[in-house]
């Protein structure tokens, strides 16, 4: 009865807020429904027999959720997933509210649920998923999420409560996650990337786990992909990774640029190979047709310029954005706009920009425009890195866009790297649409 009431009221609020254009429509209905029925999510999934896949990790959740959904649909399944920005309990609830009928029926084969770092343990208290996908774990918004070790140990405890039959996919190139996977009692499969793609010479600065999770000794890396991901072994206790799926023999059509997307895709392939036992050839042809989620390597045409927009919100992610752009540009140059905000969804502490390695991009830079709430923090960061006069701070984002457009020719491509709220704002200006 409470479930029924919460659905009715939740749906009403959703309808009212979209009718009145109140914004924030995406999580309020869920918030309300959870007030009425705290076990809302649990009860909905109890009623329905669809398979549930949970996607967690610091970076790549939205892209991976979209890609898994795309592939499942391509295989003919009906798929439900929570939209971008709705990865807390109230967001998941809102998405469910929108989709169920009044009795709480969800007429789908799969639910693919993206959850943020805090929500994974909360969600696993409510439901027993069929598969859990752990992409990676990097420092991110320490003022909000806290220490990565704390997040990791919370993940471990909550995963341990799941039944043995739960299928778990874990990044095996991450020493901490690999160690966690090995301790879990269920069926865990690991993914990584081909060693040939691991090109870093030295351990970079943005690492979180380079000490042996078993005995605290500095790990040896024979190959390094990025951050603390690579081929590691412990000289003292012998801890090392094995059976990591990298699909190097399969000529995969990776649908997006950048090593981080090879990781995401290989994780997803591991799931499709072992959990669904899907035909990899079929999956590979479906990969070609995938279009990125918005703001993640999104190409936007605006005033005859080609704008490549990359969400870049923490050290590991930002460093990957830079490497990706670098590999696209090779020896060419381009102009950049970097947007640094410090609102709640960005994290209020901007100190992380000092863990980003901007220097590798400098030879590719024509001009760098900087904008956002913390425009001058980012300008200092760039100034101390490049010692040239190519940095142009423009606090107002609209004006910054105008400036970079004035400084590029028609048909020219330029790059925008932005934190979360900056990315949303940019899209609003470029596409004239309000999101959320």
């Amino acid at each position: 009865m409470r479930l029924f009431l919460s659905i009715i009221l939740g749906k009403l609020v959703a309808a009212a807020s979209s009718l009145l254009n109140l914004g924030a429509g995406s999580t309020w209905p869920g918030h309300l429904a959870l007030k009425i029925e705290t076990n809302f999510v649990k009860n909905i999934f109890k009623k329905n027999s669809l398979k549930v896949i949970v996607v967690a990790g610091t970076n790549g959740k939205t892209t991976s959720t979209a890609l898994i959904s795309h592939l499942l649909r391509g295989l003919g399944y009906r798929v439900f997933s929570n939209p971008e920005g709705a990865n807390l309990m109230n967001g998941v609830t809102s998405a469910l509210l929108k989709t169920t009928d009044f009795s709480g029926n969800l007429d789908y084969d799969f639910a693919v649920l993206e959850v943020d770092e805090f929500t994974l343990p909360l969600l696993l208290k409510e439901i027993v998923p069929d598969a859990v996908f752990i992409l990676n774990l990097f420092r991110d918004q320490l003022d909000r999420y806290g220490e990565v070790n704390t997040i990791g140990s919370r993940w471990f405890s909550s995963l341990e409560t799941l039944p043995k039959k739960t299928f778990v996919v874990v990044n095996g190139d991450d020493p901490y996650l690999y160690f966690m996977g090995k301790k879990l009692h269920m069926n865990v499969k690991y993914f990584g990337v081909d060693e040939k793609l691991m090109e870093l010479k030295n351990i970079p600065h943005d690492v979180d786990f380079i000490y042996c999770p078993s005995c605290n000794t500095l790990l040896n890396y024979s190959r390094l992909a990025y951050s603390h991901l690579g081929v590691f072994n412990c000289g003292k206790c012998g801890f090392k990774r094995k059976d990591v799926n990298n699909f190097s023999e399969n000529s995969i059509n990776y649908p997006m640029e950048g090593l981080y997307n090879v990781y995401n895709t290989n994780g997803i392939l591991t799931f499709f190979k072992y959990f669904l036992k899907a035909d990899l050839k079929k999956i590979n042809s479906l990969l070609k047709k995938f279009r990125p989620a918005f703001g993640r390597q999104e190409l936007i045409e605006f005033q005859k310029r080609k704008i490549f927009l990359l969400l870049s919100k923490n050290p590991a992610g930002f460093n990957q954005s830079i490497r990706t752009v670098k590999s696209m540009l090779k020896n060419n140059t381009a102009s950049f706009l970097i947007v640094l905000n410090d609102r709640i969804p960005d994290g209020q502490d901007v100190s992380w920009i000092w863990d980003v390695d901007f220097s590798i991009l400098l030879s590719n830079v024509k001009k760098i425009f900087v904008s956002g709430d913390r425009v001058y923090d980012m300008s200092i960061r760039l100034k101390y890195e490049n010692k040239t006069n190519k940095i142009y701070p423009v606090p107002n984002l609209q004006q910054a866009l105008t400036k970079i457009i004035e400084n590029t020719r028609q048909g020219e491509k330029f790059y925008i790297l932005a934190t979360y709220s900056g990315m949303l704002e940019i899209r609003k200006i470029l596409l004239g649409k309000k999101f959320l």
Partner: protein
Amino acid sequence: MINIGWLYPDLMSTYGDRGNVITLVYRMQKRGLEAQVVKISLNESPGLISRMDMIFMGGAQDKQQEIVNKDLKANKGLFLKKAVEGGIPGLFVCGAYQFLGRYYKAADGTIIDGIGIFDLYTESPGINSQRLIGNLIVEPYILPKTRLVGFENHGGRTHLGKKVTPLAKVIKGFGNNGEDKNEGMVYKNSIGTYLHGPILPKNPDLADWIIKKTLEKKTGEKVSLKKLDDTFENKAKQVIIERYL
């Protein structure tokens, strides 16, 4: 050649602390001074510390602090104490600041001995207590008429003893413990603080104070530093001051 010793860069560098080292080197080089960063971690010999003209150490997570604490107590702590007591300028942020005190009482009540260089102690009020997180604006006693801005994120509350003096008075934020309006501490030529952000890039006056002390200690002469273009730095600071004050 000025040697900047960076302690445990691979372990104690969670909050963009590298920015402090980058800033020191940049501002020295702009003045024609030769500077190099010497990374001193677990595998380096503790004796290296004695050859440093300046020492920096940042903050970390509990797990990493555990590893560092062991190493400091086993061998590097004594060398560090000698350097600080001898007047070698040092900057110790967040976790490092707490470490160099007498002890740290963790949330579960366990007492972790510090290395006792600074007369201060830190206590967590318990597992359910709030961390002190947010933008922090302070007025430093060593640099009258300036303000320092940054970000703090710490669970422990630090209380100063008689042998050290507070670095600054809190204008906005929590500082050492959220109660006595003190932020950080100064002992000889060393600074301990909760300000990250990191602290030095946006607070060039403090960076220059450390550089001056370093040069004076090294040469034994009074030093005055050439002014640099700090337009971005001052604006970055102003953005935060205007937002909160």
